[in-house]
């Protein structure tokens, strides 16, 4: 479903060229969970941004469902993100002063269309994630676990094929982290892939492949559930 071929990325810092990603190649299939780990500043978020079309790689190609991702016009990767990707972050990245419902519907609002089907799907999603009673509450009053569930609902509302999760359990207590982990596993079983940046051993065990990003290179598979 997603294929990365020889992706390289460098930044200039203080006159020095900092090579963050070196010749990265990777493939994610439908239904897989791929975990990436690595030290802070190793380039995990950069890799995530490149997959999302937010950052343009220096070289290399990305294919999504055998179609090459184009960075030529910003509107193309933006539409790609809106229609095919779901995002979950460590810091939730929710609009704190808006309602749960507004946050969940935001990707559809950006796409410009909300139909009855979408509304019914949002209702079922909020019920499934036990958020329906909080739909009109402001996000700021929710607990960390509830916020992350709102983030999951938002990531799923446009029924994406790929979920990009950047350390989704890092800010949560162990119990809540396990719940969120379960949710991720559930999601991956719904004919979609999950690309996960994490340091949680628990999540490694449920991943199909685990890579460590070290010195800009993806190094070997450490733990694998299958």
């Amino acid at each position, binding site marked *: 479903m997603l294929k990365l071929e020889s992706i390289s990325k460098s930044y200039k810092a203080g006159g020095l060229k900092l090579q963050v990603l070196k010749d990265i190649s990777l493939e994610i299939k439908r239904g897989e969970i791929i975990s990436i780990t690595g030290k802070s500043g190793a380039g995990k978020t950069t890799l995530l941004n490149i997959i999302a079309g*937010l950052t343009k790689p220096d070289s290399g190609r990305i294919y999504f469902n055998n179609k090459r991702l184009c960075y030529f016009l*910003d509107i193309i990767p933006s539409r790609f*993100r809106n229609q095919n990707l779901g995002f979950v972050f460590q810091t939730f990245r929710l609009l704190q002063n808006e309602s749960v419902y507004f946050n969940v519907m935001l990707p*559809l609002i950006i*796409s410009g269309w909300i139909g009855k089907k979408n509304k019914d799907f949002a209702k079922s999603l909020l019920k499934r994630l036990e958020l329906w009673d909080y739909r009109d509450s402001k996000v700021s009053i929710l607990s960390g676990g509830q916020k992350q569930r709102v983030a999951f609902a938002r990531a799923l509302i446009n029924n994406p094929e790929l979920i990009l999760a950047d350390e989704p359990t890092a800010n949560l207590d162990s119990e809540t982290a396990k719940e969120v982990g379960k949710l991720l596993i559930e999601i991956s079983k719904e004919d979609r892939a999950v690309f996960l940046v994490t340091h949680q051993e628990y999540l490694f065990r449920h991943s199909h492949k685990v890579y460590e990003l070290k010195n800009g290179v993806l190094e070997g598979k450490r733990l694998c559930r299958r």
Partner: protein
Amino acid sequence: MQKVRLIIREIFSGGFITIVVLLSISFSTILLGVFLVIRDTINKNVISQMENSIPPNTIKVSPKKGNGSLLKFIFKHAPGEILSEETLKEFGKFPGVKKIYPVQASHIPMQAVISIFGLTYRTDLICVGVAYDFLDQDIKKRIRKNIWDNWKNSQELPVLIPLFFLEAYNNSMAEPNGLPTITQDMAINREVQIVFGKSSIKTMEGATTEKARVIGFTDKIRSMALVIPLKAVKYYNEKFKGKSSGDEYMNFFIEVKDHSALLSIVKKISGKGFIVETDKSLSREIILLKNRVQAIIYVLSMIVLLLAIIAVSFSILIASLQKIEYYRILRILGASRLFISFIVFLKFSFIGFIGAFAGVKVLEFFSLNFTPSLKIGTWNIGIVFENKNYSLFLSGSIFLSIIATIPSLGTLFTKRMDTD
């Protein structure tokens, strides 16, 4: 539809910092408005009053004296030798010419008979004919313009005496001959007989005596000739010297619109070979001074505009950076840069409109309630609010807001929005 909701939500979001932006735009509008009023006041009172208090000199045009050049053999007259009706029409078409006063000299022998202090004096003289408007201020005994300009044979002839004529009599003739000096009051309204076609040397057939009356004094013609209606001079020139004699003029006095027009008209007329007398250097100085004052005002207005843009830019930058996380979320969820730019522009254009409207209303309030009596010396410096100012200020302030949004968009896109 959903995007419209997002746009409306964006416009009305922001809280306190949006109010700060609104106030900065209102304040900038007021500042620009006050400055524009000061500029207009300077333009209206200082520059125009200065220019009007030193009116552009009237140009005196005379024909060039013939020198028997080769051209005279080829053409009847060399260029610049004749001021005719045709020349009058040609000069009248020059841009900046307000009015032309032609002066025609009598080409026939003439005498004046004056009775004063019980004695009768008879003297040869020349007359010039001029239009009423040119002498308007010199006419002491008011007569109708129509009587002067449409004088008819056998009507009493109104006459203006050159001031030097009076001075010359008082200084050179009265004392040596033991006669009393004559004041203007003594001379005004005095009857004079003017004989057309006769002098002490020559008498032409059909010489006519006209009854004339002194109605004022003038130094505008700068000659020792009596000044009478142009129609009278034309009539007697044509009567004694033929039709063509009535079409030839001694001088044109050209009234110009302003100092810059004077300079260009002088250049054109000189180029045609005529003799031009005027104080060009004064006009040049005035134009230079006017241009300098306007350049300073222009530079100052640019500085004020720049300061306003900087102030509004900073407030918009702070407002935009405060919402950076919101824009990042929109970007991640699929909003394009174009859409975000659009909503940011729209938001600050709307705030710009509201801010400018508030600023204009404040200016209008001051113009109606406080400033009508504000004066510096005799200059009224009150804010005069005209209808055209509304659209000017509103569109100007919206434009200012859009310009001021560009730096914040640049900051959002180049550094912050797509990365943490």
